[in-house]
């Protein structure tokens, strides 16, 4: 009875267009009313407890750090460095976009930050260099999903918060899949560039120019080393790394490049609070619903349901991938993690799947969802930066999307791609 009410209310409120966190809150309220004998005060209590966690501080800190780097134009050095490394390959500027997204993913934990930081500069310059607008936007969107796959990653922080899996282990697990995605995108771009005649960079850089570019990019290239290195070396936690990143961006922006202005700061801080509030409110209400779902033994019921279909973990992973890909199309990454992972992580454990492996599969899967309509943040950003419609952007996006789904299945079924690095480092 409780489960039927909860499911019914959930579907109804979600379809009605209610903000997701409220839809989940209303569903939880309905569930508690049906359960009877539960005091309503558990709702605000669980809402507070769900948000009062140190790892969550990574959200505002990574958002603020990304904003500071964008406004402080710290990324421009990175873009020229990328052009230096891969610009001479055919389709060079698009390769440079993919390469920059990969490096920037080592600074930010979010795909949206990756898309806006790289895309705001690279989409116009690709367009000037003769690439069609929709191709430029599609390349950027497809590459930006490396943001949460290559460490640091907010999606993995959420996953670790919900399941207790080690953040360091998850971060390490994301490295190889991220690089594989970069490689596959660059391959497709190379083939496309041959077919459509996109050019490479004609001039060679002299030694002097090479040195200047390297020197200018040192400031930004140091960041992934500090952040990822610091976390993996056990010097600081993911949250502290995000905090150190903020300080670094502030110092570089104010004192070295002098691109940041004091009067821009309040608006950035306010924006940080707003972005965080969306996730925190969601976590707050989801925590109430998750409590009901656990009280009603949903994880056990789900495990029983899947083992009746097949005892083979490979079949389970296939079904889970299909379900998560579908979910990723209609809801955003954070709600998908908070809603589905508490139910499916125990099931995956029941099948003997390592939580780190499962976490990476879920992360890559849901990030692909950022590229699919009707709800896909990265294609929204790409289309608004290039000032084209979503439909126009989707046409050149397909090959990239298919390649990313292929990588998803590769990392799902060939475990060493994910687990080699975490195992090497003893996770």
């Amino acid at each position, binding site marked *: 009875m409780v489960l039927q009410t909860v499911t019914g209310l959930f579907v109804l*409120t*979600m*379809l*009605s*267009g*209610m*903000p*997701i966190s*409220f*839809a989940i*809150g*209303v569903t939880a*309220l309905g569930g508690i009313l049906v359960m009877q004998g539960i005091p309503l*005060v558990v*709702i*605000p*209590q669980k*809402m*507070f407890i769900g*948000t*009062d966690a*140190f790892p969550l*501080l990574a*959200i*505002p*800190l990574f958002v*603020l750090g990304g904003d500071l780097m964008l406004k402080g134009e710290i990324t421009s050095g990175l873009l020229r460095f990328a052009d230096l490394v891969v610009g001479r390959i055919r389709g060079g500027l698009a390769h440079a976009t993919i390469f920059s997204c990969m490096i920037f993913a080592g600074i930010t934990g*979010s795909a*949206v930050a990756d898309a806006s930081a790289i895309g705001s500069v690279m989409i116009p310059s690709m367009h000037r260099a003769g690439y069609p607008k929709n191709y430029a936007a599609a390349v950027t969107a497809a590459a930006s999903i490396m943001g*949460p796959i290559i460490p640091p990653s*907010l*999606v993995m922080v*959420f996953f670790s918060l919900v399941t207790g899996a080690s953040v360091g282990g998850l971060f390490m697990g994301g490295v190889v899949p991220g690089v594989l995605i970069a490689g596959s995108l660059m391959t497709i771009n190379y083939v496309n560039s041959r077919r459509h005649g996109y050019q490479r960079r004609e001039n060679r850089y002299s030694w002097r120019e090479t040195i200047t570019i390297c020197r200018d990019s040192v400031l930004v290239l140091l960041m992934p080393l500090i952040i990822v290195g610091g976390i993996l070396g056990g010097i600081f936690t993911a*949250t*502290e790394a*995000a*905090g*150190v990143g*903020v300080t670094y961006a502030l110092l570089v922006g104010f004192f070295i490049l002098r691109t940041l202005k004091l009067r821009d*700061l*309040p608006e950035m*801080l*306010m924006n940080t*609070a*707003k*972005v*965080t*509030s*969306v996730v*925190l*409110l969601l976590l*707050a209400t989801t925590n109430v619903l998750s409590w009901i779902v656990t009280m009603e033994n949903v994880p056990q019921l789900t495990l029983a349901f899947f083992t009746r279909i097949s005892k083979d973990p490979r079949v389970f992973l296939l079904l889970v991938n299909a379900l998560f890909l579908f979910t990723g199309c209609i809801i*955003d*990454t*954070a709600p998908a993690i908070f809603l589905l992972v508490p139910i499916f992580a125990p099931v995956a454990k029941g099948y003997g799947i390592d939580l780190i492996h499962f976490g990476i599969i879920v992360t890559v899967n849901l990030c692909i969802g950022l590229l699919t309509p*009707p*709800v896909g*943040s990265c294609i*929204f950003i790409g289309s*608004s930066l290039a000032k084209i419609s979503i439909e126009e952007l989707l046409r050149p996006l397909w090959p990239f999307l298919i390649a990313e789904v292929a990588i998803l299945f590769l990392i799902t079924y060939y475990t060493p791609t994910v687990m080699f690095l975490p195992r090497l480092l003893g996770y």
Partner: protein
Amino acid sequence: MIRRLIRYADRALYWTIVLQVAVMALVVNLQVFNRYVVNYVFGWEEETARYLMVWSSFLAAAYALRSGEQLGMQFVVRLLPGRVQRVVRIACHATVMIFLGVVAYQGLFVMIPQQLDQVSPSLGITMAIPYAAVPISAAMLLGVESLLLLEAWRGQETAMAAAPIEI
């Protein structure tokens, strides 16, 4: 007069949030500094940062709701005819208001009195202070929702953010 009061309150809230986020970022860095330079983590750093995050986010939730950043799945509702859409929107806002009302009432009159005697482990403040963020935010969201309900009643569609905010 009232309009001016609202503007002052709005400004005060804005700067409260800005200050909270700034101090929060500072405290996290201080924690790293204390661990490696002072060689001693006091323990209040983590708690302070956490409570500041909770408070700033719950306060900012009302701003985010007002500027249309709290997104739902709009694409199904959009398929409905205009008049039905309006009814659905009104029903949604009313339902959300009931939920927020429960959170605000239960939070302020049941949860806060319960938490008054609880003391936070390292700061030693009453747990009612951090907990209060939830019902106070719910009350503010209730205010915004009633405005949105009024707009939906008059048939104005709420302004939507150009791009959804997401991680």
